[in-house]
């Protein structure tokens, strides 16, 4: 399954919304319920499903879904 699709499934589960279709440009302002606390849920879920970890410093650099995708891609290809 393509990375974008796998991440989309996680978004749907975290935000309890089967209609979410993420795009690289998407930010927290585009998804209902994406607040700082649900963001922690999102990160924990991504770490668990992809078996990766993010550093605090990395987390601060994510401005949109595209940044998140790039970071995940980098981590799973170096695993």
């Amino acid at each position, binding site marked *: 399954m393509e990375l974008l699709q796998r991440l989309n499934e996680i978004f749907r*589960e*975290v935000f*309890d*919304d*089967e*209609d979410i279709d993420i795009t690289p440009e998407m930010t*927290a*302002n*585009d998804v*209902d*319920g*994406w*607040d*700082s*606390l*649900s963001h*922690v*849920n999102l990160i*924990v*879920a991504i*770490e*668990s*499903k992809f078996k990766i970890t993010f550093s605090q410093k990395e987390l601060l650099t994510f401005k949109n879904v595209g940044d998140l995708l790039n970071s995940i891609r980098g981590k799973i290809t170096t695993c």
Partner: protein
Amino acid sequence: MINIIVNDQYNIGHICTRQQCTSGLGDKVAFRWISAHQERSDYTFHNLDSESSKFAAVLQSLGFDAGDILFTFLPKTPEQFFCFLGTLKLQAICGTLFSNFGDEAILDRLGDAKANGVVTKKSLLKKILRVRHQLPALKFIIVTDIEAHQSADILSYPALMRVASDDFIAPLTPPETPSVLHYTSGSTGKPKGVLHAHRSILHQSRTASEVLNLTDSDTFWCTADQGWVTGTSYGVIGPWSLGVTQIHYGGGYDAKLWFDLLQKEAVTIWYSAPTALRMLMREDAGLYQGYDLGALRHIFSVGEPLNPEVVTWARKTLDKDIYDTWFQTETGGIMITNRPGLEIRPGSMGTPLEGIEAAIIADDGDLLGEDKQGNLCLKTGWPSMFATYLGNDVVYQQKFKNGYYYTGDTAVRDGDGYYWFKGRSDDVINTAGHLISPFEVESALLEIEEVAESGVIGAPDELLYEKVVAFVHLHEQYKWSKELEVKMRLHVSNKASSIATPQEIIIVDTIPKNKSGKIMRRVLKARYLGEDAGDISTLED
């Protein structure tokens, strides 16, 4: 004091809209709506009056009447304000739901209130539909972003509003008429519906003027969501009863964007929350250089205690004071507060407003003197005092003794009359200014197959004031894993709300309970904090 009551009309919807128009403010901007993507739209008091009157007419055409209950389940949007004020114009009761609530939180509130209607948006509709079969009183769901009616009872807000007349006039509304409904969490049982009356506007208006210092030449920004009492008392009622222009921003926390807004919109009075202010404090100080906040006269804070470090930071970095205010859902408006003209004692709640009689009372009912910790109580009779807990008058009566309302907070009064918050007298968790019931989180966790028992406490947190910590005992056959952590987090978040999600989950062999099976949260808290648990004679073997 400003007199906002004309011809005995106490209707909040009327006073905040039509009355402003008849007093000559019809063309004045009531609010500038700034979407999450920063598109701007201005709505005058005339627009606010017209749209809210149309919504009152819509409800009337659907058969709603005085005393019926309608909820909004919306993020911050212009429709939130039109629906809220329109519902009140009709003398129906308006409840507001935080848009991050999950299925169970929605069911508990709509079910308990026997709500007749709810206004929501398409992306949130599915949450309501999942529990709809358990809500027999719910007649209509009105959806703000569908263009055509979906069925006989799932209706399009734009379609309804297109044909509605805006000549609805609120009937003469006596002060005791029920108005706003907010649910609040207790340490046991389901959340309780705090019902207010239209008379609350007297106090909300007075405090908007006397505490927040609002005048009709101000631009006011209250960051609170309308799902909570601050969002209705001071994001709607207080300022609009005074004809004040507000800005309402539909996006979330973003330090740079927030400061861009403060500067660009020339905000003069800003009301926010300690957690947001602490987040701002953590940003690089350089971020704030170069901003011209010359228009900003005052900053206020509400939700949980404001730590002295934030006051010091604001003085140093922004050259501004922050005034911490204290009130509760039940009080409807500010009771004890720091305010311009009163020396700030950083970390203190401030002093009671004139006419508000606060007291520190021991558990045995004795009034305590200065520097003694006890129950923070308020002499009854302030105008915005809640009318009852909906359908639960027994619990309402239990909150009063000898003419005092027991707030559930504990505090100390110093020799100069300043009050200092000490904690809660119950187990309710205050996380980022939101009260969370440990019972609700425990109940959600118990729905997870792997969980045998759970106990939930609030633990000190530098950012959130308190964080939700869950102690979980797993069934023997299950092992702790990262996947299980995700499962627990998402289950609580999607059933209750994101703010109820445990920030820490601790796996234990057993949950301490007393001999009658009640979870001893104070023992869990003491263990977590490494403190003495005190008397544990009632702990089961």
